[in-house]
């Protein structure tokens, strides 16, 4: 019973914290891009791409959360033991914190990228690549969480 509670807590941590990172990142980027669009609405496509870049962290968090749910008896799988519950919790911290902080950082990078693109549209691809440089850290956190979560049901703890 307590194992399942921990698993659900883990799913929440992964989804919510990574979501906070993305929400703030995308929010900042969207504010800036709307400023640009008020001057020149023809750049909507490019702005949309740059604005959405910090949005992936929330998605990763959500996926880890979902995978926990389908492995812990809520949406399928067996009821986890106490040890497995703690394992889920430990795994979710990686993407939770990693996603949140990288979301903040990527949001800032996106804001700069948007202003850069607003000055000269040719800078778009450079801005895009520079912003994705941040993403790798969210990805690494995601993969750590993921590898643990999918192997927890097989662990005898």
């Amino acid at each position, binding site marked *: 019973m307590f194992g399942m509670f921990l698993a659900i807590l883990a799913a929440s941590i992964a989804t919510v914290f990574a979501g906070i990172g993305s929400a703030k990142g995308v929010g900042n980027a969207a504010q800036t891009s709307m400023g640009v669009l008020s001057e020149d609405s023809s750049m909507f496509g490019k702005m949309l*791409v740059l604005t*959405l*870049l910090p*949005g*992936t962290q929330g*998605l*990763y968090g959500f*996926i880890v959360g*979902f*995978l926990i749910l389908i492995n812990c008896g809520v*949406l399928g799988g067996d009821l986890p033991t106490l040890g497995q519950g703690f394992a889920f919790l430990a795994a979710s911290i990686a993407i939770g914190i990693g996603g949140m902080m990288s979301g903040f950082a990527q949001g800032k990078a996106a804001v700069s990228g948007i202003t850069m693109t607003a000055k000269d549209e040719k800078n*778009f*691809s450079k801005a*895009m*690549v520079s912003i*994705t*440089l941040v*993403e*790798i850290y969210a*990805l*690494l956190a*995601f*993969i750590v969480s*993921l*590898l643990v979560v*999918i192997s927890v049901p097989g662990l005898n703890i």
Partner: protein
Amino acid sequence: MRSVRIIALKKDRKRILEHLQNSALVQVKHTEAQEEGFKRIDTSAQLKQFERNAEVTEQALKILNSISPEKKGLLASFKGKKEIDPDEIGRLATESAKIIGICQKIIRLEKQRADYAAEQIRIKTSIAQLEPWKKLDIPLNTKDTANTAIFIGTLPKLYDDITLSESLAAECPELVFEFEIIYSSASMTCIVLFAPKKQREEAEKALRTLGYSRPLNPTSRTPSVKMQRQLAKSSDIELKDEQAKNDIISYLDYREAICDTQDYFNLRAEKYRVISELDQTEHVFVLNGYIPEEDCGKLQELCDRIANCVVEFEDVSDEEAPVKLKNNSFTEPAESIVTMYSCPSHEDVDPTPILAFFFYFFFGMMFSDAGYGLLMVIATTIILKCFKPDKKMRNNVRLFRNCGYFTIFWGLVFGSIFGDAPAVIYKMVTGNAITMRELLPWPILDTQKDALVIMILSIALGLVHILVGMGCKFYVCLKNKRYAEAFFDTGLWMLMLIGFAVIGAGMAFSQTVLYIGAGTAICAAVGLILTQGRGKKGIFGKLLGGVASLYDITSYISDLLSYSRLLALGLTTGVMAQVFNMLSTLFGTSFIGIIFMIILFIIGHAITIGLNALGSYVHTMRLQYVEMFSKFYEGGGKPFEPFSVKSKNFKTKGSNDDQ
């Protein structure tokens, strides 16, 4: 790329330039000064004229669009430019004066409307000023009579009959006066005051101390008459404005003709820009330019056909020459990805073929859903067939079609067709739970169950990608005879990476392979230590430089780890699709439930496609730019920009630019 020199008689100049512009074969070489014995023509006056005309059409179009926005379909941006016969341009030329006249008329009308709007505001303020005086039945500028002084004006405070007479009496006790308050509000009182003429000065002084001021714009008519006149004027102007607007609307039919004329003037301007670059004598002109190797024959044939001229080709090796990428239909769409980074320079190999393959391949692996891939292929094929887009758009669409093929491939490998939709439907129909692995007849890699395998696969593919990039560097160095760079800086690192890969394989399979790998890596490391410090001075410095260079291994490791995004994004697509499939089955199998299911299914998968296609595009691009291009690609070349018809609205039939 070759350089070309066309020498011809001046009387053929117009015809030759027109054909060159139309065929878009040659880029005109830009040089500051003419060769000796030649002259240049100054065409700046004509150029300015053309540019001004283009500007006029632009303004007119803007006005027309602000009055009646052009209706464009959602898919109109895919549509190619309309095609016209080159002879049509002659017709445009004859009509251009008329069209410019129309444009000027439109601009004049618009200017009138602006004047009307300003006038309306003026009238409004004047009416607002007269409003307090409405009850006054004499003109505002009524003069004194023979014995009576008349003061009409405002006081900046609220007064009534008693307070005003008290204030005046306090100011000047001996003053005899009679007044009437026309209007009063908290901040203003309008009065008419009569006093004996001989007391005029005292009265004026008393009023002044109370803050008396005359009304603005006094007129010789009573305020109410004046107001009626202003109102009449206002409605008159409104009518005129309406008339002007209708006049502009009556020109809406000319919108397309104006667009064409704009193109025509831009085209003329382009031609005159080229004329000013030509070296000329009294009877002959010389055009210097660049032409892609494969078009030389076409140009020769064209010139022979239209005029008597000499065409000379020459090989170029200078760095000034522009670069035209040449690719087959499979790799050509990826050119835009390369040029977005930078055009290849003379020392580079054209990275397009390699980039194209890996771009499609990695995009497919990240998007990895057979259903989505199929949708992409169908949608892009329909666009190509029905809209016949122009070259640039066509290549973009083809880029996504090729990505779509690989998306189908990887979707089948990962067993993902709209997520796990087939399994979900199977369960709904039969009631038995089933996994995609059991359902599909071929062996699949499940992104969730086999994540580790896919992660190793991703990094292995990354290694191949990086090695291919380094192989290009190796080739470029060999081609430019920089052997030390080729073998020591690139070759040894390649050996090292291969060594590590073999070690990895050895750990999984056999001890012997592991030893072979370790041996290779150690040899490469020793080689690096011995060679990497070769620029430094002294034995110690050389050795230290060599050892320090081994630190670069970290950058290779981080590059390789970066490829784990192939797994991460592939998984994201699959899981999101699965989530929406699950949500859409929540409503059960009743009639309403099925309807909800279909709606949720469509919306959910649309969201998944949007988010993940964007992610896959961006991250594939990053893998190319950051991980592979950094290994070998310099860029910095100039793209080939031929002298051509640069129009927004039409293209000429049979122009080379669009084959």
